């Protein structure tokens, strides 16, 4: 039998090549060397490439003039602004779509999730089909469906928008609705708002401690909210009463271009310029005593169908003028053709009364395009819309500008397509209250300033080919929003369903035993417990929505990613721009992770 020698010559320590700690350290050193060497080679390659091809490798180019036109901005932006500003616009656009999207997708997701648990078989099946179909189709496909197949194809052109009650317009260029904006008199109301907010905060804390001390149930925010709203409301009344016109307020109105600017005339020369800035959200009434609009009838494709012989003037509401009439420019056309009006005097159809019954019948439209062919352009009948006593309330935009339809002198022969013409000349420049124009222009226009309340209501109008005033959401924005909301909701629905199902049945039974109704059981017992389970995965879905908003590139919406990409292409500064993109998205991810941690902490069950 062999015995192993366990004598003292056996080494006390493990040899270094078998020591886990030493091997680990060695492995890590080798790893660091390898990775470092790899990174060095790649870095060297990039820098040599950048220097040989003379591309920017730092961030100094960001201060230069961007020159990137951006359709939708939440802050003032012109192409003269710097790249920094353009990037900021992109970030705000991304946040805008993310915040609205998160709110809407939560609502839709919860509704679908609850539907999946409905006692109604049909609702349950519909919710299941929704979830399965939406989840298993790429977001990219859904986005192009919403953008190209629905929002660009189905709504009518902006010249003939769908109008919903409350001055909401919907057309191919998007949706526009009225909105309240803070005016130059907002500062009168601001102190009241601050006081109201402080009151709310103070009273809330007071009420909460009171409720906690008395160990009763109750809502701490009800009374403080009523008080704060009352103070704010009272303040609004006082501020409205105090509101006044700034002394130096003036307006420059170019009637032949249909636009003007409200500004503060600091140097008193009555002209806009010399570093003067437009006055945002100022209210005025623009009046044209007598003028005319011109258009040409045409065939066009609208909502997937060919519309024949249609004419579209700028849309005038009935209360904006005292009389209006549409006439043919060519007298011979007037003998053969008639007009059929669809929306006031602004929109209608030119038709030939073939059966001589005196009214328009389908099929009688004037057709320049052969049946089945796509319309190819302007070749219709010229028409004029003559208006007397036109008056429109305008609210200046962020840069102080406002727009109205382009009127020309009534009865004047106008051959130019831009609507200006030689006879119309330059529009007058008027200060309050009205004024007289020089003899050159026969177009009698005036701008009357009105005192703006702290909040002014801006209503969208369509003076030319886009909405002016109110808030406008473009088709691209809507498509991105629809796509993201509907896609993410399918995931949230599953989270909500799982969360509600995870609440033990005993809780429901106990609630029933206590005499709670089914609604009370759900809202007071089941839902609060389900929220604990639902919220953490829901937050990661919010992060997904935000990251997925980078697919805006498919619908040409100017988000952070798209603008960064344009800048990278324009300047050739791919490396710095992609660093910015990655850091930007990392910040977003880390913010969500931070929120998630807080939520997890607050949601954790306090166990005794």
């Amino acid at each position, binding site marked *: 039998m062999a015995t192993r020698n366990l004598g003292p010559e056996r080494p006390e320590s493990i040899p270094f090549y078998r020591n*886990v700690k030493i091997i*680990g350290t060695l*492995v*890590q050193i080798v*790893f*660091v060397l390898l*990775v470092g060497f790899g990174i060095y080679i*790649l870095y060297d*390659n*990039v820098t*040599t*490439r*950048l220097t040989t091809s003379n591309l920017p490798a730092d961030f100094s180019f960001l201060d230069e003039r961007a020159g990137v036109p951006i359709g939708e901005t939440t802050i003032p932006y012109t192409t003269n602004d710097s790249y920094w500003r353009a990037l900021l616009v992109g970030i705000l656009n991304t946040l805008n779509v993310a915040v609205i999207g998160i709110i809407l997708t939560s609502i839709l997701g919860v509704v679908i999730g609850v539907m999946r648990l409905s*006692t*109604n*078989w*049909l*609702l349950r099946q*519909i919710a299941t089909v929704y979830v*399965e*179909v939406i*989840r*298993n*189709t*790429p*977001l*990219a*496909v*859904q986005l*192009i*469906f919403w953008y*190209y*197949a*629905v929002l*660009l*194809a189905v709504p009518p052109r902006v010249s003939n928008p769908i109008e919903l009650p409350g001055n909401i317009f919907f057309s191919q260029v998007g949706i526009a609705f009225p909105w309240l904006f803070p005016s130059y008199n907002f500062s009168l109301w601001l102190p009241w708002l601050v006081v109201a907010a402080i009151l709310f905060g103070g009273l809330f804390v007071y009420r909460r401690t009171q409720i906690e001390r008395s160990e009763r149930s109750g809502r701490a925010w009800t009374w403080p909210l009523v008080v704060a709203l009352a103070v704010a409301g009272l303040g609004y009344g006082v501020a409205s009463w105090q509101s006044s016109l700034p002394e130096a307020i003036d307006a420059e109105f170019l009637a032949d271009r249909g636009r003007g600017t409200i500004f503060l005339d600091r140097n008193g020369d009555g002209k806009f310029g010399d570093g003067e800035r437009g006055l945002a959200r100022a209210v005025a009434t623009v009046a044209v005593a007598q003028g005319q609009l011109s258009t040409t009838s045409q065939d066009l*494709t609208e*909502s*997937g*169908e*060919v519309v024949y012989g249609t004419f579209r003037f700028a849309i005038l509401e009935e209360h904006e003028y005292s009389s209006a009439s549409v006439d043919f420019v060519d007298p011979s056309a007037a003998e053969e053709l008639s007009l059929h009006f669809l929306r006031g005097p602004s929109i209608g159809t030119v038709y030939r009364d073939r059966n001589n019954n005196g009214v328009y019948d389908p099929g009688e439209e004037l057709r320049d395009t052969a049946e089945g062919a*796509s319309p190819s352009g302007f070749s219709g009948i010229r028409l004029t819309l003559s208006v007397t006593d036109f008056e429109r309330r305008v609210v200046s935009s962020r840069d102080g500008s406002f727009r109205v339809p382009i009127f020309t002198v009534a009865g004047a022969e106008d051959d130019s397509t831009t609507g200006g013409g030689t006879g119309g000349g330059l529009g007058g420049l008027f200060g309050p209250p009205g004024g007289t124009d020089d003899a050159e222009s026969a177009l009698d226009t005036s701008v009357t300033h009105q005192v703006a309340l702290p909040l002014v209501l801006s209503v969208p109008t369509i003076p030319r080919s886009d909405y002016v005033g109110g808030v406008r959401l473009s088709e691209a924005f809507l498509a991105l929003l629809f796509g993201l909301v509907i896609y993410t909701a399918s995931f949230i629905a599953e989270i909500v369903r799982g969360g509600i199902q995870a609440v033990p049945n005993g809780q429901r039974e106990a609630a029933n035993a206590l005499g709670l109704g089914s609604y009370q059981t759900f809202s007071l017992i089941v839902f609060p417990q389900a929220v604990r389970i639902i919220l953490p995965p829901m937050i990661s879905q919010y992060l997904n929505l935000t*990251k*997925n908003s*980078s*697919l805006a*590139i498919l619908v040409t919406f100017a988000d952070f*990613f798209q603008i960064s*990409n344009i800048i*990278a292409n324009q300047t050739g500064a*791919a*490396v710095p721009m*992609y660093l910015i*993109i*990655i850091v930007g*998205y*990392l910040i977003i*991810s*880390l913010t969500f992770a931070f929120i998630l941690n807080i939520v997890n902490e607050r949601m954790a069950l306090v166990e005794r």
Partner: protein
Amino acid sequence: MALARKPPPAYSGVLGWLRANLFSSWFNSLVTVVVAALVAWTLFGLFAWTFGSATWTQVWNNLKLFAVYRYPEALLWRPLLVVGLLMGLLGLSVFATEEGIARILRGTFWQIIGLILVLSAVAFVASWGVRWMWLFASALSLGAYAWGRTRPALLQQIGWLWIGGLLVSVLLLYGIPGVHSGPLEVVSVREWGGFMLTFVLTTGIVVSFPLGVALALGRRGNLPIIKYFSVSLIELVRGAPLITWLFIASLMVPLLLDVGPDAISPLAKAYVAITLFSTAYMAENVRGGLQSVPKGQAEAARALGLSGWQTTRLIVLPQALKAVIPAIVGQAIGLFKDTSLVFVVGLFDLFNVHNIVAQQQSSLEVTGGIRLELSLFLAVLYFFFAYRMSLASRQLEDQLGVGTR
């Protein structure tokens, strides 16, 4: 005297089912009627549109573009042979796995075979140039399935068969490197596209698997430098959306390797980005599996004298990976959908081909355009495969009993 009372409403039988599920209260009845009317109206509208006013000519005429993009017409037998080969392998696998998994594979196999048979019939009737090849692909798949039923000894080696099959598939699609004429000539990856490319890109999940496992082990390990390297790589990649990585790959890969912007094919760039992205998510999935393995397992293994590496390889990883198979299938679905983003590097996958078709002259002449037809066509195609995978994932979950033990 006892009054005769009405019997309680029945909740069994057809009427009972209707009462319980659709008309349990007046409110529920109202909801049912309104919703049923809406559903009927929508379905009728969709039906009428699909078979009435929709213009499917462009989709029909461009099916080859959607399938393989610019892959040479004369060599179409090669991708079709790959279809037959892979389906044959799937058919064989049905008989090489244990009963539960085999059932899932069988279901998948028959559904895809159904699709292939339909396509074969269409190809035959429409007398496409490849109609015999379609039949051959179907015959190959079915033949392999029939052969598998006899349980040949070869089934023991199913893993090697798959590896060999995938290699042969790559060679078939690409051709023999260096050969520039004849039936096996090289087809440049710039000619690849359509659904074939979507499928090729989705295989990135296979490549990302070992990388993801390595990263997950690195993250769970106790070597601090490797751990923080893994953590930062995973979080960095997951932090930004895939579309940014695709853009970065298309611009940065040539810079990093110090070559001209066109020296590397867009497919290679996209593959790098997709694999990198997929690896980071794979690592997180695998980490979840590693965390689900009870600590006692590793401790018991160490007590038996297994080394650290043996413990990981033989004890921890098999249990961890089994637990995350459904999650990995879920990730594969995500990747399959995300391949639609490769339009940013200029690839024409199934999704991007629709842009070409929508802008063809004949499409533009259709009043209202054909975007609706195209997006529905794409949606149906993507849905078929993604839903098939998600069904398999759910069945796997039940089969493996994840969360029930």
